[in-house]
């Protein structure tokens, strides 16, 4: 556990009239650093926040962007929302599954990619759209779906 986590927790608590509100910002900040939120990390966060571990786990598990399992270096979210479906997102997902040899929801054995479905990403003008580490890419022609995987993206 890094010593700066305690500094972050104290900083964030001061931003709110009620310190409890610092929980999600702290989880975000630590996940950006660690890549995912292990149960040891959640335990530490609970300690820093003065909350129970069960409470912190129940909050983290409610939100799909808090990863409680290790994820790949690149997390690819393919939007499967209705507008993207109309524009061919099924085919985009299919091609990526074939290329990576994994199914939606899984991570490649080398830890390079995690492939996930996203609901409407509020970018239907770019349909079909995807995010790589939450950076938007689109419109994606199914034939060019694989290019997504070599896209250079900053760490989220």
């Amino acid at each position, binding site marked *: 556990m890094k010593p700066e986590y305690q500094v972050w927790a104290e900083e964030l608590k001061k*931003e*709110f*009239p*009620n310190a*409890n*509100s*610092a*929980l*999600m*910002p702290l*989880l*975000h900040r630590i996940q950006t650093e660690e890549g995912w939120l292990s149960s040891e990390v959640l335990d530490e966060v609970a300690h820093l926040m003065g909350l129970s571990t069960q409470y912190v786990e*129940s*909050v983290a598990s*409610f*939100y*799909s*962007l*808090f990863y409680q399992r290790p994820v790949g270096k690149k997390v690819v*979210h393919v939007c*499967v*929302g*209705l*507008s993207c*479906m*109309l524009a061919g997102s*099924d*085919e985009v*997902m*299919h091609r990526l*599954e074939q290329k990576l040899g994994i*199914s*939606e*929801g*899984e991570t490649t054995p080398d830890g390079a990619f995690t492939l996930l*479905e*996203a*609901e*409407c*990403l*509020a*970018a*239907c*003008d770019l*349909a079909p759209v995807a*995010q790589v580490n*939450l*950076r*938007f890419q689109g419109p994606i022609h199914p034939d060019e779906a694989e290019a997504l995987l070599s896209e250079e993206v900053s760490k*989220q």
Partner: protein
Amino acid sequence: MSQASHYLLRNHDIENIDEMAVYRAHGGYEALKKALNQYEPDALVELVKKSGLRGRGGAGFPTGVKWGFLPKDGRPRYLVVNSDEAEPGTFKDRELIEKNPHQLIEGMIISSFAIGANQAYIYCRGEFLFGYETLVRAVREAYEAGFIGKNILGSQFSLDLFVYRGAGAYICGEESALLESLEGRRGNPRLKPPFPAVAGLYGMPTIVNNVETISNLPPIVTRGAEWYASMGTEKSAGLKIMSVSGAVNRPGNYEIPLATPLRSLIDDYAQGMKPGYRIKCIIPGGSSVPLLMPDQLDTPLDYESIVKAGSMLGSGGCIVLDDTVCIVKASHRLIKFYREESCGKCTPCREGTYWMADVLERMEEGLGDANDLSLLMDVADNISGKCFCPLGDASIGFLVSAIKHFRDEFEAHVTEHRCPLGAKVYDTANN
């Protein structure tokens, strides 16, 4: 109709208006000066009432009236801006925060002054990483320029503003679930009443407004309530941003005077259907609303006219379904959305969305049986009006109208044991 100028989407006319210097060079933060120098807070609330501005997050509640509900009891008050935009087909708030963040921030400062809040929050959808970074940067610029902080522009008014990141949950767009999330909890909706105006964030009086709603404040203060009310109709005044997607030539966000006909939105603004595609039906206001048919294209896009036509303006997410789209597959997709996003708190919503998704899936695969259509209607009936929050009802809006208008197509899936449109069923892990 390519518009010469915009009032809300000025980023279409002015490059880099997301930057403080550019925003100010085009009159930015002048509305804030005017509000602080020429108005008492109550007079601003009156101005917003007179403008006729209604909430753009979906429900269309008159904004000034909502502000008037705050109890005058000296407790701290909060402004919370809802930037959790996730209603399928809607993408206007994302453009507003990414491309014109200072307009929102200026609107928030004016609104906070009007309602007497010294603390304001933007709840930004977790997936909007760039939008979040843009807002954080713009808020810092506004602090540095003295527009946020202590004694703003030499006045008695002080304000702190914090950008809060959600983490992936559609239900957190519902205002009481949003407040739960902002307090560091799971995003389960709260029982209403009390409404947030009476007991909101940390139990204090709180105004929750949509990004687009608050982005209207600078132009209304600059140009006046009469100007705003002169557009649209008496009950549906002003401007609305419509997000258009589907097989149109130019998908995108369009700022229209309310009561612009649906046909004009599709043909003039979005420049019509792509060659070879015809309209099958239209979802005019985000995935939670009933569909409209091609013979209803003359419907004016205002709150009352759309209700009369059998649907709702909702969030303004206009999805055009073309004649190649299978109605069962589209319905299945939308029900899966609600199934994924149900918070699980109440049974009809949690179980019903699962059930409906299963039935629609087997229908689409040609495995449905003769009872499936009435089963769907039964489940929908058991959801309708029986859920804790509006997500339950939202889940069946499209489906029920689809069965009404396209019953033959649903039945053909069962009798022909296949999709009559030949829609491909993908065998992916999570289907």
